């Protein structure tokens, strides 16, 4: 899909990753500012490489990942530092800092990256805590939190700097969907905000049908479907149909 030039955020060109259990084979796509994309596919389809690739957390690949026409692999130390401020990242398993409270976890990027006073940080963090219904566990450490509270804390930490792009890996893994409603509502608000890009990597694309504008499916390291929400919902693509309907027979073989 083409973006207006001014709105292009990241371009991935012919990226190949080989040698591991999950590979990418000649993968190319554009991400535009304001676009909300769901990457999905089966285990070992290569989707788990997407967020690390976009976040410059992978080095060993061929091809290009361009941010503002600059190859992120060739960024120097300072450029990487500045690049990482444009996105928020919710990792699989959430990776909250275990010796910090919910408040401290959310305040961490603000304390490190901004010149805000402690009073301003306090106000900002408190507003996020209220927004994500975390007031009751404000001073608890991650070990004391439920799965949904951890997810909401990780989400609050990722949006604390109000980044242009949000990368989220398997957010609903091990989650009770009823408890995850607050997160899904906040994610939808984020996705609908102008010029904010949300990238979700998941095994459950249907959960994000009201959030995403574009769906990309990977199979054995290659893109087998890249289309709009409407195209996705028709289930015309045989890979999408097999995956969403959980069919044992089709172009994909169960391993």
């Amino acid at each position: 899909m083409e973006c207006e030039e001014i709105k292009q955020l990241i371009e991935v060109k012919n990226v190949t990753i080989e040698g591991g259990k999950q590979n990418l084979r000649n993968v190319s796509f554009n991400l535009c500012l304001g676009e909300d994309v769901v990457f999905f596919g089966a285990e070992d389809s290569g989707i788990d490489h997407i967020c690390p690739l976009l976040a410059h957390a992978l080095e060993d690949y061929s091809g290009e990942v361009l941010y503002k026409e600059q190859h992120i692999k060739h960024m120097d130390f300072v450029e990487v530092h500045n690049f990482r401020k444009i996105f928020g990242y919710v990792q699989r398993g959430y990776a909250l800092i275990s010796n910090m409270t919910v408040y401290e976890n959310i305040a961490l990027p603000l304390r490190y990256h901004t010149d805000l006073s402690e009073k301003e940080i306090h106000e900002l963090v408190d507003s996020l805590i209220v927004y994500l219904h975390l007031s009751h566990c404000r001073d608890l450490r991650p070990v004391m939190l439920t799965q949904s509270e951890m997810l909401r804390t990780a989400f609050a930490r990722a949006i604390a700097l109000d980044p242009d792009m949000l990368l989220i890996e398997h957010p609903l893994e091990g989650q009770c969907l009823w408890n995850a409603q607050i997160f899904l509502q906040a994610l939808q608000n984020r996705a609908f905000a102008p010029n904010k890009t949300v990238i979700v990597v998941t095994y459950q694309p249907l959960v994000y049908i009201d959030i995403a504008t574009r769906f990309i499916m990977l199979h054995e390291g290659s893109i087998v479907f890249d289309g709009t929400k409407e195209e996705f919902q028709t289930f015309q693509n045989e890979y999408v149909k097999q995956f969403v309907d959980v069919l044992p027979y089709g172009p994909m073989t169960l391993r």
Partner: protein
Amino acid sequence: MVQIIKKNIFIIVQKVDGIIKGIADFNAYMKAIVRSFRSLRYLKIRSLYTIAVNQTRFTGIDALPLVSWIALLLGATVIIQATTNFPKYGIESFIGNLLVIIIARELGPLVTALIVVARSGSAIAAEIATQTQNREILSLELMGIDTRMYIILPRIVASFAAIFTLIIIFDVIAFFGGYLIALTSVYIPMGTFTQTLLDAFTFNDLLVTITKSIIYGVLIPLICCYYGLKPKSSFEIPIFVSKAVIRTLLIIFIINAVISVLFYF
């Protein structure tokens, strides 16, 4: 016989190769830390404050009772031995010199460093290893936080401050606490005891204490963080924590000997 020799040579070659690779890897780690100094301009002191304060409290204040007891017992042992045996050889006037040589120059810094390695070094290595396994370190990096500066720098500052203070406290308690315990077996006037200590102290002794504090304060967190960042899976955590403690201890003994040779030989 030839087979056994070949096997032993092979084992030695493997060990040497392992040591060379280890040194090269540590060298790369040090270079990465030096490169990270470029991020100092982005570093907000307030984000390191909590880590530095917690580390100073754990390494310094929490270790104080243990350091005090060991200083007291060691001081008493040395003083009792000196005051009971030196008169037999007619060298009781050298008691002050002996105390300065044994306690201030060697035992104070060495025992303090051993306590810090055993308590804080192992804790640093275990904490960082667990955080690495839980992908917390990766999470910091993805937030644009320079983990080398964020994790290692405050621990070095805290360790130096704590070790320097603990060495001074160790020496004072070893001298005067030991003196009080020794009074139960032999009588030495306080004035004479203090004067012999002051006469025996030189500027070099102070310099050695500061030098050792700086070197131990830097090396202990540096080596322990290095091993803390190493584990690739959970079962490797105890292996690398053990390595962190043992290798730091070994290096401290070597450095202690080297400093003594440089300053006093």
